[in-house]
């Protein structure tokens, strides 16, 4: 439809003449676009309402989705190519970036503003209450406990993840079994937090004192002469630590992999030179390894802290927020879906956002420094 001959032809004619000559083609392309949209929408309605076996629906949905998106780009591009060359040149970039920009704007940028507004409204969003929700969040006893728990998660969870990750990366670097050890530590990253919840709930399981214990931890405690404990229900607030262990188990692999790569990047000569000069292994670690991987250490720590800050699945699956284990993300969910307090729920989401703003600023600074644009 569109060969180089066409383009040169268009360049010579005036836009008005071009329109009269090509209006038909343009309209046709536009009509095709509308038809594609309509067909996809009809497909969606059909898929939503059909009673076909689930396997068939799922397969058709996958085909519909994957095919649909390719078709949309194809038709959009054809439409732009029908325009006069000067216009096409201007419009083409938007074929490439507009779908992404629209989606990101709708799913992340605009909701941020909408949630901010909702946080200034009352529980059903009908009246403006100013900073009242923020006041509640910082004075309510249950909310303060929530913050304390998040603090526990970050102090113990994030720091132990980073320390263990660093320790294992250092050990693995000196071991012949490096690949195997790393795979084992890394594996929990592939498991959902819900499945991890099952794994660890089973370890913490508790039964009557007279019955044999089927939870590993209590069996070990009894073998050592102790009494079985309900690890995640009693001993508040320390029961939080048993939930935090799950996160450490999952996240250490991530920290380890990144540290391991950074450690491999340190030139061997520096290490060897230090050893020849009589430095012991601890000195090498603290005075050479740590400073050399500082960048990675900061990046991994921030990522782990952000992830820990937003922890949700573990708590909701293990306790549902009971026994004094509520964290911001579960409180957010409960406020919104259980207590139907939209204002307070939105306030909690905004607090999570505020907590990551320093990281956001840091990211932007680093990005501007790179001057890739």
């Amino acid at each position: 439809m569109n060969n180089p001959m066409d383009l040169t032809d268009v360049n010579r004619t005036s836009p008005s003449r071009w329109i009269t000559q090509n209006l038909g083609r343009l309209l046709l392309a536009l009509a095709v676009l509308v038809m594609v949209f309509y067909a996809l929408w009809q497909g969606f309605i059909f898929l939503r309402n059909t009673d076909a076996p689930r396997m068939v629906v799922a397969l058709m949905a996958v085909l519909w989705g994957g095919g649909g998106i390719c078709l949309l780009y194809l038709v959009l591009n054809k439409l732009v190519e029908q325009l006069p060359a000067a216009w096409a040149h201007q419009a083409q970039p938007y074929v490439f970036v507009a779908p992404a920009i629209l989606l990101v704007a709708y799913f992340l940028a605009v909701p941020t503003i909408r949630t901010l507004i909702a946080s200034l409204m009352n529980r059903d969003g009908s009246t403006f209450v100013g900073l009242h929700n923020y006041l509640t969040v910082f004075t309510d006893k249950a909310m303060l406990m929530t913050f304390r728990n998040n603090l526990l998660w970050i102090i113990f969870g994030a720091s132990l993840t980073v320390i263990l990750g660093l320790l294992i990366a250092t050990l693995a670097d000196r071991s012949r079994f490096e690949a195997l050890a790393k795979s084992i530590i890394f594996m929990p990253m592939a498991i959902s937090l819900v499945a991890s919840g099952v794994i660890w709930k089973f370890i913490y399981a508790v039964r009557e004192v007279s019955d044999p214990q089927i939870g590993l931890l209590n069996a070990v405690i009894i073998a050592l002469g102790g009494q079985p404990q309900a690890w995640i229900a009693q001993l508040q607030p320390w029961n939080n630590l048993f939930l935090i262990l799950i996160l450490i188990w999952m996240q250490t692999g991530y920290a380890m992999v990144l540290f391991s790569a950074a450690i491999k990047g340190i030139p061997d000569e520096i290490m060897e030179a230090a050893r020849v000069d009589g430095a012991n292994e601890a000195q090498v670690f603290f005075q050479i390894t740590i400073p050399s991987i500082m960048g990675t250490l900061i990046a991994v720590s921030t990522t782990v802290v952000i992830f820990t800050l937003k922890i949700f699945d573990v708590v909701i699956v293990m306790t549902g927020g009971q026994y004094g284990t509520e964290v911001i993300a579960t409180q957010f969910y409960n406020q919104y879906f259980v207590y139907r307090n939209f204002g307070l729920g939105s306030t909690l989401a905004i607090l999570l956002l505020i907590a990551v703003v320093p990281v956001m600023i840091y990211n932007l600074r680093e990005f501007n420094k790179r001057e890739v644009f």
Partner: protein
Amino acid sequence: MSPKKKWTSGLLVNGVLGLICLVWLIPTFGLLVSSFRTREDVLKTGWWTIFPHREWVTIESIEPSADLDRNGPMTILGVTATFSEFREGVTTPDGRRVVWIGNKRLGKVQIQERRWTTTTHFTLKNYQNVLTGKEYEVVDEAGNSFIEKGDDLSGAFINSMAVTIPSVVFPVTIAAFAAYGFAWLRFPGRKQIFTAVVALLVVPLQIALIPVLRDYVGLNLNGTYLGIWLAHTGFGLPLAIYLLYNFISTLPKDILESAFVDGASHFTIFIRLIVPLSVPALASYAIFQFLWVWNDYLVALIFIGSQPGVQVLTMRLAEIIGSRGNDWHLLTAGAFISMLLPLTVFFALQRYFVRGLMAGSVKG
């Protein structure tokens, strides 16, 4: 370092590392073993009893003589004790144990000895039961049978696939187009928009859930595949664009220029040249997003909600934890089913996944 010192330090390194690995493996191993054990075994004994261990094993079962006075002290096999003591078990001087089983009138006496033993009754029944959506019969220790409903995890597995595949394909495709646009095309606002994408990298997705859910309810999109695909796409795009931009912008410029000279359009260059060259980066991100979506619970919980036909594996599993949290034989099998695919993908494509992580994984 002297050879001897080197050897001991090597032993120390491998010893500590081995210990850590063992601690890391045991939880998953316990789950896997339990999922294959029979219902009675899982609920009565720890999974570690599949290994040889010393335990009281009944070697003989005898009828107590009828004239024994069951209300006073009784003497059986040379030991004297009351009924309640025998119920608990009494150890004889020769190291055996006498236990009264059952009630006072009709009970039996078991003579037990400590022996090495293993509990190894393995079965696939737990898997059958959780996978099916139909009812099945269970017989408990006392011999009572009752009917339980299967958890239909096979259906949830299909749903997880139907949710995950497009939720990976969409952001990869859309982000690849966008990354090319940002890297090789010039348009007003290009830098500002990309800066906004970088800023959105760490935005917690909680911020978006409430407004988007409101729109979904209005549009009847909640509980549909399309709704959750779009949500995962929107939330995943900033990272996808960022990673793919980093890769695509470093491709050599002269390849593109020679293609232009040949008269190819941007669209053709993208499809014919850029996409094939970017396969490693696309794969890295695709695996990352696959594991993210497959293991996601929050987004599914919010946008699928209680729509039963569309529920994904993580939701079904969380529901079983809530409703029958003590049926460990079913929970362990269910959890393992949900881990099967991500673990396979993970071990098969670990290299790509690690590369994706390296490129910066700060996701909201």
